[in-house]
């Protein structure tokens, strides 16, 4: 893994790589997503949950990506803080709104699912609350960056916050095990293999990959945008001075 930052740390190389990688991930995401949705909607109704089981294919991957994006945000922030790398900072900044979006999606779909399943939109249990906290961290990160108008300072303050917020990730993952929760535990990564029939497992798996590819594509696009914005600002500042 150490080669990846080393390889991508050169902005020129990154721009060249992402020029084709971003659209390619987009295409992969679209194909996998279509396949996942097809299998998902042709799967039989669950004997317990009925048709609402299909929310799973939206909800579960969104929850995964919510956490994965935060891991990316924290990782990029670490690189930005320790190695003072501008590209890593751009990557962190670009990841935050995407992660917030996935978290929001997980919250909304979970809540939509909770109505038929639990009879309520929302309960204050550890899993749900820790996801809400994750969402709050994304918001706090974006708010912090937006309110420090010195770019360098904002970048560092944001990175510190992102790393502090990383303590929440294990809480999200293990909350169902640490506290008895309405929310079900992990059935996919349970001991002794996934406890889920293949008709559901296949579309879930496909959707998971599709979400990941979509995240990758959007992330690259946003980093590229961020790089362009900073270059343009530097050029404008130069022009204003001369």
């Amino acid at each position, binding site marked *: 893994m150490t080669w990846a930052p080393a390889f991508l740390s050169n902005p020129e190389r990154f721009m060249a790589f992402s020029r084709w990688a971003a659209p390619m991930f987009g295409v992969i995401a679209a194909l996998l997503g279509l396949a996942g949705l097809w299998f998902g909607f042709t799967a039989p109704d669950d004997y317990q949950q009925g048709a609402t089981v299909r929310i799973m294919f939206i909800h579960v991957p969104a929850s995964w990506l919510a956490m994965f994006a935060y891991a990316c945000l924290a990782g990029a922030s670490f690189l930005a803080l320790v190695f003072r790398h501008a590209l890593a900072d751009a990557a962190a900044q670009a990841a935050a709104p995407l992660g917030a979006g996935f978290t929001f999606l997980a919250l909304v779909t979970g809540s939509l699912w909770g109505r038929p399943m639990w009879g309520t939109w929302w309960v204050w249990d550890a899993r749900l609350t820790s996801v809400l*906290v994750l969402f709050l961290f994304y918001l706090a990160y974006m*708010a912090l960056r937006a309110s420090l108008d010195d770019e360098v300072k904002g970048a560092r303050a944001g990175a*510190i916050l992102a790393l502090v917020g990383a303590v929440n990730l294990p809480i999200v993952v293990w909350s169902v095990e640490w506290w008895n929760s309405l929310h079900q535990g992990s059935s996919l990564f349970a001991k002794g293999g996934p406890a889920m029939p293949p008709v559901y497992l296949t579309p879930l798996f496909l959707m998971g990959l599709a979400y990941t590819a979509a995240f990758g594509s959007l992330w690259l696009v946003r980093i590229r945008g961020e790089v362009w914005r900073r270059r343009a600002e530097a050029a404008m500042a130069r022009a204003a001075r001369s």
Partner: protein
Amino acid sequence: MSRFSALLARETALAWGRGGGPTVSVGFYAGVATLLPLAIGPEAQRLAAIALGAAWVALALASLLSLDRLFERDYEDGALDLLALSPLPLELTAAAKCLGQWIATGAPLALAAPIAAIGLGAPVSLAPLVFITALAGGLAFAFVGGIGAALSLGARRGGLLTAVIVLPLLVPPVIFGGGALDASASGLPWTPGFLLLCAYAVAALALGPIAMAAACRNALS
């Protein structure tokens, strides 16, 4: 070490004057204990059910609202410059500030919390647990709140930002402490929640100063 204790004494004195101190915390809880029954009606049952939780939330809110200027004054009047120029690492300086805040505000609030809870109808036997929970929780709140205060230094919307940053960090200790109190009130074992709270407080004590020092250095430069 004499530097650390001198700073601790100063910070405690400042926080005491700034709105901490026993009278204030007693006043604060007296407020909660008088206002809550007034606002939700005096039926003893209703009250007793929420006594512990209310005392606990009041503690978190008090920390949240009193912490937002932990570093700001020093930042604006130049004291933070001088604090940074010292053999004492900025991490310890930040820790001393949070500890001072805790001594001046958290500890008196922790002393007052059981009284308020009992006043609202919680069983007297719970008082010691409320006290130590509040003590540990207050420590966690102070160190976590300090992170928010340090990060929002120099930001245009300081107070707002502190609250937004600190809120997510406050949720875990509130869950742990509230869970322990709730469990104990219903006769379940309270140690797991309490131990988690202590673990969180220790983690905040260990990691908080690092984050605060980094944030302060960033704001100064």
